[in-house]
């Protein structure tokens, strides 16, 4: 199977990503709708009876806490929604690159632009995911404190994701130069 062109892997990937984006948007809208419903009705019950968090490589499952279920904080909800929006934006840019590859447009200025946006988004995701983890740890902190367990919550920046974002930005600048060369080649008669 070819990587670029009409019936290429890029073509199939762009279709798959379209479905993924649609599912993520539906999920996000459902979450926002549910939150608006909770605010209007005053029903503050959490969605899940069992909540689990990842923190520093450990997975905590919170079951039947004395106060009932662990309440999802507003801060966590905002961060989670932001995280999902960033993932949707990143996937949309990636899908556009695959669509351009399907049309045979590889070294093409818009592709460099999409790649640059992906790089910046990955860097922001690195920061947001770190904040999200800390926020989930704070929710768990109150629960553990109620159990008589003393824990420290620390902020740990996702350096690997930041590095990947910078590498993507570097590749974007290389693609920009390649697009310049390709354009010059196309306009050489």
């Amino acid at each position, binding site marked *: 199977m070819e990587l670029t062109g009409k019936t290429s892997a890029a073509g199939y990937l762009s279709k798959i990503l379209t479905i993924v984006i649609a599912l993520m948007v539906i999920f996000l809208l459902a979450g926002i709708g549910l939150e608006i419903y909770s605010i209007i009705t005053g029903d503050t019950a959490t969605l899940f009876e069992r909540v689990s968090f990842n923190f520093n490589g450990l997975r905590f499952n919170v079951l039947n806490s004395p106060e009932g279920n662990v309440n999802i904080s507003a801060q966590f909800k905002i961060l989670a929604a932001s995280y999902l929006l960033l993932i949707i934006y990143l996937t949309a840019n990636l899908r556009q690159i695959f669509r351009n590859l399907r049309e045979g447009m590889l070294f093409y200025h818009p592709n460099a632009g999409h790649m640059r946006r992906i790089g910046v988004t990955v860097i922001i995701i690195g920061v947001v995911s770190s904040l999200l983890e800390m926020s989930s740890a704070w929710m768990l902190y109150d629960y553990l404190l109620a159990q008589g367990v003393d824990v420290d919550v620390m902020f740990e920046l996702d350096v690997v994701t930041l590095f990947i974002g910078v590498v993507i930005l570097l590749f974007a600048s290389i693609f920009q130069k390649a697009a310049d060369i390709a*354009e*010059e080649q196309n*306009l*050489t*008669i």
Partner: protein
Amino acid sequence: MPIITTLDVEMAKNKISLTDLAEEVGITQANLSILKTGKAKAIRFTTLEAICEALDCQPGDILKYEPE
């Protein structure tokens, strides 16, 4: 761009259309149009040779330098 093409003048002198010239030179009509409208960034010597042969002219007849 300081280098301008006067291809249309030579084409009119020879009473040849864009389509016929493109066929004679061996390039696409689209590419010849890019050259004629001054959008080209470079021209190969082989293409220049073919155009000069088709229009019976010198390179200087179709390329002019006008500083900005």
